[in-house]
């Protein structure tokens, strides 16, 4: 197997890795906000349920959660899980990352000085307007460094999809390496993750800079 065919085979895996990465962010960033809002619900039942869910999601290995999402329907309901692999992976990642994002949002919201709410109230803004126009934009700036951390971790965590034998770049690297007794696939995978995170850093740096016009 030449280097270029190896690269070609693995590039399909790179695409799948990127797919997990992008879809997880699209799903978990908003879902985290939903968790965060529900965690502050007026209703104690909702508050405690969400707290419990977040606690479990953060307190157990993502690898285990992926297995539960994938095999759960089969063991619980005898469901046919043939086409369930990719959905299970996505749900596992989205829900797990949403739990982390929810806690980051919460920290950001709680760090806002009460004076911002009071000024908004005295001027006549509604609660929803206050949150959307005044609190959230400032929270986003405050939490950007923590979000960047999570996004970088996610790039590497995508490799956990190998647990469900999904053919992303890490699974492929393992397979090809074993089949061809070559070390090269691991080098390619390593370079891929590194470059991906380098890009993440550049993008997030731009985003952070774009918000530095105020303190």
């Amino acid at each position, binding site marked *: 197997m030449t280097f270029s065919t190896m690269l070609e085979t693995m590039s399909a895996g790179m695409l799948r890795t990127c797919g997990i990465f992008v879809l997880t962010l699209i799903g978990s960033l908003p879902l985290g906000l939903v968790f965060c809002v529900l965690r502050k619900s007026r209703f104690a039942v909702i508050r405690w349920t969400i707290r419990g869910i977040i606690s479990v999601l953060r307190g157990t290995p993502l690898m285990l959660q992926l297995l539960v999402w994938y095999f759960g329907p089969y063991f619980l309901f005898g469901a046919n899980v043939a086409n369930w692999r990719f959905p299970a992976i996505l749900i596992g990642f989205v829900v797990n990352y949403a739990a982390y994002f929810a806690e980051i949002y919460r920290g950001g919201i709680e760090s806002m000085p009460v004076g911002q709410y*009071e000024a908004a109230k005295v*001027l*006549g803004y509604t609660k929803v*307007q206050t949150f959307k126009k005044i609190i959230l934009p400032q929270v986003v700036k405050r939490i950007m460094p923590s979000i960047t951390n999570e996004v970088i971790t996610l790039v590497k965590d995508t490799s956990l999809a190998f647990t469900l034998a999904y053919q992303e770049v890490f699974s492929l690297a393992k397979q090809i390496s074993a089949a061809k007794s070559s070390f090269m696939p691991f080098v390619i995978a390593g370079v891929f993750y590194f470059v991906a995170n380098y890009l993440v850093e550049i993008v997030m740096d731009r985003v952070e800079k774009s918000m530095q016009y*105020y303190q």
Partner: protein
Amino acid sequence: MTLLSAKDIKKSFGDLEVLKSINIEVEKGEVVSIIGPSGSGKSTLLRILTGLETADSGTISIEGSTGLVFQQFNLFPHWSVMKNLVDPQVCVAKKSLAEAEKTAREILAKVNLADKENAYPCELSGGQQQRVAIARALAMNPDILFFDEPTSALDPEITAEVLKVIRQLAEQKMTMVIITHEMNFARGISDRVYFMENGYWIAQGTPDEIFENSSNERVSNFINKLNQMV
């Protein structure tokens, strides 16, 4: 015409009775100062009158709208000065953008900040920020403007520029209720002065009655102490 009339206001936080029976009336065009020792309940009263806190009992009637200027300015840091003034007018008072900008420019000129409309709050000095905060409140065209120690977070040299703006407002017959520790200012600007201690008014009257020859020993002690500090 009476713009504000509050009767028998009471407020406790847990076991702590902060306001024990407060009456206050403010006429249109009047400037009223509230003075008194720390922790006596002055801010709590203002927060009740502006809707930030609710009283446990008592009645409040206010003709028209109110504005509040905070000790800590509380500008929106992610918005330019202009946006701080314009957004509430558009979003809350439902004015058109053009109209809101026109009002904002007129008011910024009044507080001597015409050249700062594109600045962000973090680029301004404390005194400038407080003048923006006053402008933001004025842009909503309140019938009564409340101030809670508007100069207490400022360096003494900068205090004057903020007091000057408030004096101008008084000349234009803006109705104002001001909590302050600046005794000379209170004396010069006020039509009436209220003195609070432990959740009661222990004295009220014209500035001369309070500052010159108060028959109340606690009032004169408080004023003498503040004068010695200056």
